[in-house]
């Protein structure tokens, strides 16, 4: 009798294990572990996806009008110490902006020029996945990756997650380091992360982003990447463009014409 019961339990256990194994094979999508790591760049055009095309051929060396305009509009502080630096939009050399691209036999001109860098407002933003409080989120209606500073707890996970260094942490109180405070836009506080917001406050008033509006060369073009007739899509159709670190699968919404 005892012998039988033991045998029964043993067989049932084996049966359950075998069943689970088969189930994991058949229902591979519904349960167990799934990994999200898509690097393919399929075109799923759903809703609006705001993006930018930067024509680096038109961008003048030494000109910082877009940077100045952005920093003035958004009360971005200027710290002398680079460790305290707050960056929304900045210029960097080729090897820093496109570290994955080959530099072999590259023209001196291309190599030595500096390139505009800003938040890429990725279609698959890693900073949003890293944020434990959902302070950083992607706006469902236009694809802008933006921040709710009220919620930011300053953990800086997003800074570690962002492959573009587009986020800065306020180590110090920013207010004393702002030359002229723009009364129409809030400042930030010590202890929060901040970044480019694609001028969502200007967009809501029907204006273009400050950098785009301020560029005297017309090097920056802004628009809906999902609209096949938009200006940005025209530029993308007619020019060869680069995205920063496209191999990571973040699908940046900022494109560069080199």
């Amino acid at each position: 009798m005892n012998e039988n019961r033991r045998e029964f339990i043993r067989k049932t256990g084996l049966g359950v294990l075998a069943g689970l194994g088969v189930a994991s094979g058949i229902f591979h999508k519904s349960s167990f572990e799934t990994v999200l790591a898509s690097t393919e760049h399929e075109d799923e055009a759903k809703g609006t996806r705001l993006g930018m095309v930067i024509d680096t051929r038109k961008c003048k060396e030494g000109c910082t009008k877009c940077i100045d305009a952005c920093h003035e509009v958004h009360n971005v502080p200027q710290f002398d110490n680079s460790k305290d630096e707050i960056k929304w939009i900045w210029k960097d050399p080729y090897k820093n902006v496109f570290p994955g691209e080959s530099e072999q036999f590259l023209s001196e001109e291309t190599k030595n020029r500096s390139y505009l860098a800003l938040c890429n407002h990725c279609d698959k933003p890693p900073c949003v996945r890293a944020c434990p409080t959902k302070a950083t989120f992607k706006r469902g209606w236009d694809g802008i990756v933006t921040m709710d500073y009220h919620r930011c707890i300053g953990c800086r996970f997003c800074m570690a997650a962002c492959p573009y260094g587009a986020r800065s942490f306020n180590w110090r109180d920013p207010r004393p380091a702002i030359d002229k405070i723009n009364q129409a836009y809030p400042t930030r506080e010590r202890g929060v992360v901040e970044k480019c917001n694609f001028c969502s406050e200007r967009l809501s008033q029907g204006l273009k982003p400050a950098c785009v509006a301020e560029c005297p060369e017309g090097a920056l073009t802004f628009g809906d990447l999902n609209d096949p007739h938009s200006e940005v899509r025209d530029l993308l159709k007619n020019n060869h463009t680069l995205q920063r670190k496209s191999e990571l699968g973040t699908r940046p919404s900022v494109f560069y014409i080199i």
Partner: protein
Amino acid sequence: MKIKEQILIFGGLALFFFVVTYAFWQEGEAKKIRTPVAKSSSEHCIESREYMRENHMLVLDDWRKSSVRKGDRIHVTPDGREFEKSLKTCFECHGSRGFCVNCHSYASARPNCFGCHQEM
């Protein structure tokens, strides 16, 4: 026990109870604070004065959530008036942060809005 000691003990007890219950003997009212007044009459506000006194923090919280996270920047009052969801809208009538500080400092509840926001 001597009478002297009894007087000392009961006198001490009486003094003790007097001191302990002293605060409850006082009759009076809570300190009055000067209520700040808006530049325009309360009919201009998004809700009645009573509602705003009790619920202004919930209104601000709701404005913050719906404007930042849903992009819905316009508040429509039950009688159809429209306001931009912004602290700027509040200060158009209520002047400056002094309006907030008056009551908040009395209640010892510090709003931390002005670490970032400006009063315009």
